[in-house]
């Protein structure tokens, strides 16, 4: 870790964002300032560039532009991240949808796909996978490629087997209940290759697409019963969050659920259109 910290001023930050907006398709005007600033500073340190050279290079080389956009996004994710959120899906949300003919689910900001595979595994355990249609989008096409491949590092995902157990095998409301589900049912662990590979039947299921939440719009020509959007809106300011909530509202069926991350909440005008329970928001019937 280098001890030189590169910092940029607020003016430089707006200059950067303004420039990107004029010569590319990307608009970061309404991202959360502090984390965005930090990402740019990190890019400047990693590439050993000053801000002007960075902007110039991004304008001239479209590959480089795409590379930097990908570097700016934060892609941290895990299998069954925050088991409690999955308990809510398992015991409260999905049971209410079990009699639907189809269950439409959209993972917005799916990153490398662990959240999508977690959902598919849960759906399969609940006997709902055949009626589910699962769509997943992200701004960053590199993470989408990883998500499609469904191969992860074993080492990094080790702790998450624990979460798998908590969500899939255990029942938090009844500790005596325990369902033996072998990991091999869903993925192959290869400790030598240091990999976890999702089974083909899981990989066949989701539709992955590039989509920019800043631009808005629902690209799937269907409404959804569940929209999962966890740890994505934390990178947006209130105003952009609100626009995305409007998009989600329009894209949900009446009574459909929006699931946010465990430290996220809806603030502002859209709150009156949803019924809130923890980090889950249910679209009110009109």
């Amino acid at each position, binding site marked *: *870790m280098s001890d030189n*910290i590169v910092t940029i001023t*607020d003016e430089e930050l707006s200059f950067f964002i303004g420039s990107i907006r004029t010569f590319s398709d990307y608009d970061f005007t309404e991202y*959360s*300032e*502090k*984390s965005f600033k*930090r*990402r740019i500073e990190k890019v400047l340190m990693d590439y050993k560039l000053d801000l002007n050279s960075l902007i110039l290079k991004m304008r001239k080389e479209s590959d480089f532009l795409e590379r930097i956009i990908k570097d700016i996004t*934060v892609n*941290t994710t895990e299998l069954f991240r925050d088991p409690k959120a999955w308990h809510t899906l398992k015991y409260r949300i999905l049971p209410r949808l079990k009699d639907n003919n189809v269950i439409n689910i959209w993972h917005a900001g799916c990153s490398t796909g662990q959240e999508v595979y977690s959902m598919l595994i849960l759906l399969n355990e609940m006997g709902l996978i055949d009626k589910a249609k699962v769509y997943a989008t992200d701004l960053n096409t590199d993470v989408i490629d990883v998500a499609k491949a469904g191969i992860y590092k074993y080492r990094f995902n080790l702790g998450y087997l624990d979460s798998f157990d908590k969500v899939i095998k255990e029942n938090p409301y009844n500790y005596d209940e325990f369902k033996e589900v072998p990991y091999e049912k869903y993925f192959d662990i290869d400790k030598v290759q240091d990999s976890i590979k999702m089974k083909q039947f899981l990989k066949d299921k989701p539709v992955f697409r590039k989509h920019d939440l800043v631009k808005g719009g629902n690209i799937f020509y269907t409404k959804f019963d569940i929209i999962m959007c966890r*740890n994505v*809106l*934390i*990178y947006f*300011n*209130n105003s952009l*969050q609100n626009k995305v909530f409007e998009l989600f509202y329009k894209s949900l069926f009446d009574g459909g659920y929006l699931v946010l*991350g465990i*430290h*996220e*909440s809806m*603030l502002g005008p859209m709150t009156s259109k949803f019924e809130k329970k923890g980090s889950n928001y249910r679209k009110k019937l009109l």
Partner: protein
Amino acid sequence: MNDIKAVMIGGSAGSFQVVTKILASLPKDYKLPIFMCLHRLKHVRSGFVEALSIKSEMPVIEPFDKDPIRPGVIYLAPANYHMYIEADKRFSLSTEEPVNHSRPSIDLSFYTAAYAYKSKLAGIILSGANRDGAKGLKAVKDNGGITIVQDPKEAQVDTMPSSAMALTSIDYVYSTDQIISFLKKINNA
């Protein structure tokens, strides 16, 4: 003395007792917001707020993203998120990679608080085995705020306060009791 508007405290899992003692000594009607960024043990992800709440008369909460900062509340950086202070005095959270093996990172929280509050921030570094917090405290100093470290003689592990002392000028080297009196004094200023 500067007109302090907010306090930020950085420490490690080992400073839990000191933190508890400090929080337990502050009155219910304490006016300033207090931000705390404490490293946690890997396997202990929750239970921290609960434990601190029992001891403290002030409300202790883990902020949600974009929550506005309220006076008289103790805010604890949630496990596995970096906690930032935005210019409009709201929190924002991030899951970007750990810094110095730490998420939350004390440095990152301090940078943003120092920038948001400038000379109106008091930054305090408690005991810990990691150098996290040193650069953050320097940012507090560079922005005109007050810098305090727990006396390395008193700290269980003194890497954290000592690294901060090596990197920037420290206004006060205080024992836990002195930190408590300081916090009470700025509240009445």
